[in-house]
Every structure is written in C-alpha cells, then in structure tokens.
C-alpha cells in the first residue's frame, strides 16, 4: 500500500489536520494522514491515578525535551526566551491543551491597516466566521454568548462553571470597571454527540480521562475515519519529495520499525505546527529547492511567534476550592486587547484567569517560599493557601520579526536521525513594554478582588504553547510562503494549514482560529478543484 498514490496526504494528526480532513472527506478523495505518535488511551491519563499530581510531571510534561517519549523529537531551545510545549500523537497539542478557546477578533486580521505594524492577513474575520461556527459545533464548544469584545455568535453549549473564584475575580474587575467574561472552552458542559459532560476533574492539561475535553482524537478523528479518511500512526516523515516540475510527489517516512517508505500523493498538506512544519520543509532540500522546500522567499522558519506569557499569582481567602474545575478555563479580561495610542506599546493582551494550584503544588511552593512553615503551624498555614490560589496569565500579542526563527540544528537529531529544530527567539521591546503593563494590571486586578500575597512571576519561559508564523500567508511570493488559502507559492500542490501560516498572532490561544482556517482552506480547495494547481 505504501506505493499507492493517495489523493491527499496530510502530515500530522493534530487540530488543523483533523478539521481539514473532516471537510475534505466529502470529496470522496482518498485521504491519508501520517502521524508520528500513537493513539492515546484516556485510561492511562494521570487523573485516573491517585498520584496524578506527580505522574503528569514527566510522561505528560508539555515539553518534548522533558517528556522524551520515543514519538517525540528534541528541540534546541538554548537561544530562545520561550520553550516549546507540544505533544506528538493523534490529537497533537490538543491532548495537553487547556482547551481555552477564544476567537481572534476582527482587528487581528487588519494589524497593518489599523496600527501600522506587521501585515494584514489576506482574509478577514468575516471570511472565517462561518468556519468558526462549524468548528465550534464539530468540537463541542461551551461558552456564554454576548461578550461585547467579539462579534456576537451563538455557542453550542452553555459556559463552563467559573466557580467562586470566578465570582471573586469578576467583582474585582467590576470594581475597576474593566471588561471580563467567562472563557469559551472546547470542553463539553453538557452531554454532546455521545460524549459525557465535563466532571470538573481539573487537570485538563495532562489529558482528559473523561473525554469531555475536545481533543481532536475524541472530537474529530473517529468521525473522520468513519467518513473514510485513513490514519497511520508511528509514521515519522523525513522529507517531502518533489519532481523536476516543482510539484510535490509525496513523503518519505520511517515506520515504527525504522523502515523507510515513500508515500506518493497528488496533494501534500503540512499540519505539523509552527515548529514541525518549517522543520520538515527545511529538511526537504532538492536541486530546485536547495534552501528547503517552498522556501524561495527565504521565509520558511522566519517570523516565529509565541505569545509572550506573564504570570501573577494571588490568594483569596474565601474557601473557593479554586483548584477544582477545568484548569485553563475560568474567565478572561480583554480590557487591554486593542491598541491604545496613550500606551507605550502597540496592540495588546488578554488577562486570562485560570484555576488555582492543586494540593501538592500549594504545599511544595509554600514550603520552599517559607510561607508554609515546618512544625505545628504547618496545617493552619496550608489551609490558608489551599484552594485559594488564583493565577492570572498575561497573553501578549507577539509581532512577527524575521530574527525570531526556526532553523535546523547542525548536530541534534531525533531517534530516526532526522535533524531537529533549533529556535532563536527573543522578546521585542514592544513585547517587553506590553508585558510590564500587563503584569501591573494583573496585580491591580488581584488587589481589587481582595487577594493577598500577590506575586508577579514576570515573563515565564515554559509557556510556548502557541507556535505561529513560520510559513506565513500573503499575496506577495517574496514576502510570504503560502497564498491566501494555504497553497505554497512555489509548489502548487503543497498546502500548509497549521499555525505556521498566521500572519500575526492575536493575543489569544490560537487553536480555534487554526481550525477555522483549516476548514476555510479545505473549502477553498473544494471550490477550486478544477484549477487547483494553476
């Protein structure tokens, strides 16, 4: 079968691939997805074990360099201010994501026109709006309609409970007169499509044993397979192959036994995230593409964007049991999202209020800081902190800069000998100023909510969840890697559908926008099948 030609070959089985494959399935074309990781077994997730608080620290760590599963690839992060969080398996990053699911806003697609920085996207919020809605339905998204910070849209399921912590923070934001709203979440708050509703286990970010979190191995892939999409695991792609006419011909991959195969295809679709996709393109060199496939612009790997992430912690003594409930989703404030010329930075950020820490973290951190003592006072002190912690994250919009990039490490390789990615990344002055502003506002919000012992941690390194910009969209082949619907300017049957194609980063978690974009691209392809390669 490896020598058969498939119509569409998708590399990677994460968020974008799942949505794209679902949409393309109605073409009845033969679609094959190659994934380097495994199917996950929810029964193995840490929350099924009483020692879940430590079991998640290694095997389910968000960093591939710590996790070191044989399905992971290493990443050289020595020259990066942010380290990558990802997962390699069916579901990709959605296996460990917190499922916080806010949409990009209309202004996010018009950054150059509105604020004179970076570039506009070759599409608008309105273009993506129907795809956001379709994806919300497919994934199972919960939320409260009517947020004045985003165009009105109906939510398929009612919002996730915000808890007493949400009430306390909401009162604080009200005191300041700031915007806030319960988070949209790709977590089902009601029984939905054969899945049981969320039971507030808590640790969504080490895998959801309940199946209530809409990771795409649950929400999309079983359906995709019923629709005829093929998915092969433990297939690690080394290189996209190309012919003398600059057309992709397929992919060379290693199976789980290390045997090399060449899978031929009429269309190749990259869905490996903002680090994996440029890594694979840069590894795909040939006579016509000596600097990497689809890289005549020289921009493959350039303009890497994360969201610089700050963190402030406080405690509110209200017996909130703040650590219960979906870890990454409580509420957000976008008071400082849009550009304000009175500030010393352009663009803005989201304040993201997430649940508190579980008992082991509260005790360990409290002991190491000296807040929870040794001896007879230990229990009373622990009680003061336990269930009362509140974390406020500052999710800053990152602007594209070519100096921030993914390249190939000259020495580091994965277990199949494929060169590993190397990141070069630093925060811009704009990001530094934005971060300082956000940290101060997060402290202010916690004070208004009545918190004590407010601790700003500054910019936090281990927060590289959102990987964007390294194969950007655009109309000008000299300034972008793919066109306005994800097709490579240089290779007419090569598409990129993951966060690599983002032109700018917004200031919210990108998964819903990545998936809406993947659905949009699939529709563009279906609408242009007759002239797809022109």
């Amino acid at each position: 079968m490896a020598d058969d030609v498939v119509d569409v070959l998708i590399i990677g089985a994460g968020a974008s691939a799942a949505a794209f494959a679902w949409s393309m399935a109605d073409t009845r074309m033969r679609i094959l997805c190659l994934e380097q990781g495994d199917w996950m077994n929810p029964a193995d997730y840490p929350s099924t074990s009483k020692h879940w608080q430590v079991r998640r620290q290694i095997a389910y760590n968000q960093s591939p360099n710590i996790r070191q599963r044989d399905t992971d690839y290493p990443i050289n992060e020595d020259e990066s201010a942010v380290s990558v969080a990802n997962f390699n398996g069916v579901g990709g990053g959605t296996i460990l994501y917190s499922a916080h699911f806010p949409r990009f806003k209309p202004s996010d697609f018009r950054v150059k026109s509105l604020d004179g920085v970076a570039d506009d996207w070759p599409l608008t919020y309105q273009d993506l709006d129907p795809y956001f809605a379709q994806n919300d339905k497919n994934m199972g998204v919960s939320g409260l309609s009517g947020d004045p910070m985003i165009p009105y849209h109906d939510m398929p399921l009612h919002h996730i409970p915000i808890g007493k912590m949400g009430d306390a923070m909401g009162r604080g934001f009200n005191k300041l007169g700031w915007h806030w709203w319960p988070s949209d979440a790709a977590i089902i708050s009601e029984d939905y499509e054969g899945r049981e509703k969320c039971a507030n286990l808590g640790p969504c970010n080490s895998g959801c044993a309940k199946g209530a979190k809409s990771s795409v191995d649950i929400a999309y892939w079983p359906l995709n397979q019923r629709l005829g999409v093929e998915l092969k695991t433990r297939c690690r792609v080394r290189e996209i192959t190309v012919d003398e006419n600059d057309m992709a011909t397929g992919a060379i991959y290693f199976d789980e036994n290390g045997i090399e195969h060449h899978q031929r295809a009429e269309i190749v679709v990259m869905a490996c995230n903002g680090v994996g996709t440029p890594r694979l393109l840069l590894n795909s060199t040939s006579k016509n593409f000596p600097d990497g496939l689809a890289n005549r612009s020289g921009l493959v790997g350039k303009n890497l964007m994360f969201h610089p992430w700050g963190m402030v912690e406080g405690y509110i003594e209200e017996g909130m049991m703040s650590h219960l409930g979906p870890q990454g989703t409580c509420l957000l404030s976008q008071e400082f999202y849009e550009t304000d010329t009175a500030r010393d930075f352009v663009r803005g950020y989201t304040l993201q209020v997430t649940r508190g820490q579980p008992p082991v973290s509260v005790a360990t951190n409290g002991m190491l800081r000296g807040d929870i003592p040794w001896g007879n006072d230990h229990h009373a002190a622990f009680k003061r902190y336990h269930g009362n912690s509140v974390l406020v994250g500052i999710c800053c919009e990152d602007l594209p800069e070519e100096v921030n990039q993914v390249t190939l490490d000259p020495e580091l390789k994965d277990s199949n000998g494929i060169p590993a990615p190397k990141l070069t990344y630093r925060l811009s002055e704009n990001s530094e100023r934005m971060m300082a502003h956000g940290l101060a506002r997060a402290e202010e919000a916690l004070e208004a909510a009545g918190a004590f012992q407010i601790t700003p941690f500054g910019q936090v390194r281990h927060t590289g969840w959102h990987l964007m910009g390294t194969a950007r969209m655009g109309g000008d082949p000299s300034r972008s890697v793919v066109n306005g619907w994800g097709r490579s300017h240089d290779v007419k049957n090569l598409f990129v559908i993951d966060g690599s194609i983002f032109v700018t980063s917004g200031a919210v978690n990108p998964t819903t926008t990545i998936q809406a974009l993947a659905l949009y691209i699939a529709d563009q392809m279906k609408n242009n099948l007759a002239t797809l390669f022109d």
Partner: protein
Amino acid sequence: MANVITSDNFLNDEQTKSLTPLLNCIVPPDADSGMPGAGELDFIGYVNEFAPEAAAGIRSELDELNTAATEEAGSSFGELSGADQATVLEILRHRNVRFGRAIVVQAMACYYQDDQVVALLGEQSPPFPEGNTVHPGDLTLLDPVKAAGRRYREA
C-alpha cells in the same frame, strides 16, 4: 503506615532512624483535624516508586542532619529527644536555609497524595471518575460589562 525498613530501602540504618522524626518535624500529626504526621506515611516506598532520582539528595541531607546532631548534641538525630531534635534543626536551618529541600519536595508530594490526607482535605483522589462540583458562577455580575456595550474594533 509507619516507615519500615524494606529490602529496597535506599537509606542506611542511621539515616533511616533519623528520617521518621525529621518528617514529623516537617509535618507533625494534628490531633484536632486527624491529620497524620509525615513520618507516619511510607515515604521510602513513595520515593522508590515515583522519585528514585531523589534518593541521593535525601541521603545527603540526612547525613548533613546527623552530622549536625552529633556536633551539637552528641548523638545522631534519631537518638535525640524531641526537644534536642528541635534545637538541632533550628541551628541547622539557621546555618543553611536551604537545608531539607530535597526531602521537603518529596515529603509534600507523598503527604498530599496520601489517601487519608486527601480524604481529610475533602478531595477526590483520583479525580476520575467522580469529578468535582463547581459553583456555576453569578452571571448577574456581568451586568455592568454588558451595559458598557460593544468594545471590539470594527475592521
């Protein structure tokens, strides 16, 4: 369950005798709440299963403790009275504020995942399948946010 010497005990006799009283100095039992002391739990078994890489650091800290106890009170820590143990710890922790970090980190992980402790805290362990009940939130708090009207920029 009290700490016991097992075939996979990574401590020598002197270290073992000092471990239980040290753990109980870190987290003593609390009669009012019924919380056990950290020395009552199977700390060694926990470390063996979940943090074997921490064993060397734990041994080193126990050696440091016993050296200090011998210098200050003439005997290893496990042989001292409760009052002398407290005095030795005070001196040692004053001299080295980082003393005990390796043991504390593992003790907290062992203690706050113990069945009895978790039950007394009112937690589900493991969280799956029972889950937790969370207050839905008071949505009337959003009234002023709604009243402020549209806030996003048209583009």
